[in-house]
């Protein structure tokens, strides 16, 4: 039996390696021509033969960091309620709701966004189409919150009962126990949750594709439309197999893959650092 398990493990590992290899091999012509790095800093203008990804990189980073700015406080507060601040029944209801929220398909968020959020933002801004960085960041923050909340509250729950009990016996209220005992002991989980949330936001395609407007200009305000790397792949995929546009897709893929691999490594590094500390 052992060989079977070993072979499955090798195949699974190969899948992961193959994805990078494919991307590198198919993007290789760009490296060979030394185009890859100049692509990272130039605009997208196919009609003039310029196939840069700079606007998409800025779009991806802008939208996902903004989503984090909205999502982090929401998640921290909700997770605090779930793990100690709220009365038990309320905490249970909150936890179930958040768990069910992880199941809302991103395309459904996008669908609702198109018909509810976009007109709202358009009226609010008084200009622009409503398809913009702000709309997609707001929606993304709701998408990534459950991931962060569950990570946070798992970490909070790891603080042993006897530690919480010690604080309570000394007269600490639930909020005091949370702020002065649980929170300081959960730094690792907070950072991990943040990175996971960022990864989820950067990796999402549908919300950006459906409501960020996909313009190829570098966004200059919250109400500017922008295109993310993921949406760019979805929009251009359909094109020519031999064209330079098509090759840049793999550069796009590599950049995205690089971002996510980096965050995975970061999470693991944090894990090791904190483990050696305690």
């Amino acid at each position, binding site marked *: 039996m052992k060989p079977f398990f070993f072979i499955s493990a090798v195949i699974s590992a190969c899948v992961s390696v193959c994805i990078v290899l494919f991307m590198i091999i198919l993007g290789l012509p760009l490296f060979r021509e030394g185009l890859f790095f100049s692509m990272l800093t130039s605009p997208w*203008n196919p009609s003039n033969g310029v196939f840069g990804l700079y606007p998409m990189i800025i779009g991806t980073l802008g939208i996902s960091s903004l989503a984090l700015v909205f999502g982090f406080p929401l998640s921290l507060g909700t997770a605090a309620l779930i793990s100690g601040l709220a009365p038990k029944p309320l905490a249970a209801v909150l936890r179930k709701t958040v768990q069910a929220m992880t199941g809302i398909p991103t395309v459904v968020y996008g669908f609702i966004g198109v018909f509810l959020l976009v007109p709202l933002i358009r009226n609010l801004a008084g200009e*622009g189409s*409503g398809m913009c960085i702000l709309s997609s960041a707001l929606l993304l923050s709701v998408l990534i919150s459950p991931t962060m909340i569950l990570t946070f509250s798992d970490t909070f729950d790891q603080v042993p009962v006897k530690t919480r009990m010690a604080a309570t016996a000394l007269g600490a209220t639930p909020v005091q126990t949370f702020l002065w005992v649980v929170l300081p002991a959960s730094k690792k989980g907070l950072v991990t949750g943040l990175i996971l949330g960022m990864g989820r936001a950067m990796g999402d395609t549908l919300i950006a594709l459906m409501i960020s407007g996909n*313009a*190829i200009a570098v966004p200059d305000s919250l109400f500017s439309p922008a295109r993310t790397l993921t949406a760019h792949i979805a929009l251009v995929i359909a*094109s020519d*197999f031999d064209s330079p546009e098509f090759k840049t897709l793999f550069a796009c893929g590599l950049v995205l893959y690089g971002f996510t691999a980096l965050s995975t490594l970061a999470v693991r590094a944090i894990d090791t650092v904190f483990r050696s500390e305690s």
Partner: protein
Amino acid sequence: MKTTTLKNMALAFILILLIPTGLMAGSLDSFKGEKGSLKISGGTAHIPVMKDAAKRIMAVNPDIQISIAGGGSGVGITQVGEGLVDIGNSGRKPKDEEIAKYGLSMVEWAIDGVGVAVNPANPVGSLTKAQITDIFSGKITHWNQVGGVDKAINVYTRDEASGTREVFGEKALNKGPITTKAVVVASNGAMKSSVATDPYAIGYVSVGHMDKSVKAVSMDGVAPTVDTVKSRKYPIARGLYSNTKGTPKGLAKKFLDYLMSAEGQSLAESHGFIPVK
């Protein structure tokens, strides 16, 4: 102007009801006894006609599976060229080098126009060609510069694979640039629904897709309608092509024959396109 959507729907509905009873003889008969799948992709202006044709064929003969995807004209041409689909649609004539490279054979089954569209709430209903060029290039930024309200213009455009974009860019904008701040949408359908919901939008859309939800803008005094395109008064017109690699064979041939049949042509007409026969 085209007939109302409601009438079309009623017509389509009646036709679908009639098909299984066998009253609908004629060109659909050729699909009897056929089996297999037919893959179609590309131009998004074509999709409503393709969908209707596929529905009728599949209703007569459930053994045939016809799949329809969008992507844009560029996609249609390359995908059929690479052999990924059986029929690749394009809203422009394939370029000579594309025809040579892939050995394409094409069928032009309808004529369509590309018109500028704004939201029905927009008072602006007529623009000059120069104004249109300046709006899309980003030189004119507010509606009050062209007689509208004091609001910024939201420009909508299509991605680079779009045949509609290519035709519009060539014949309306004289190959002038389109502002990079324009919102990019992926199909004619998406262009129509975006302009229909955004009161300050401007976009360009296949004349066949125009309906009451958007307002067609006259260019130099000529409104983009089926009649003006037909009479060549409205200059931005293009053929709707369905391309195959080599001469069409089997199901693909029967499908294209169906499009060119009287029934296929009336289908095109009912969707607001100008039949070629």
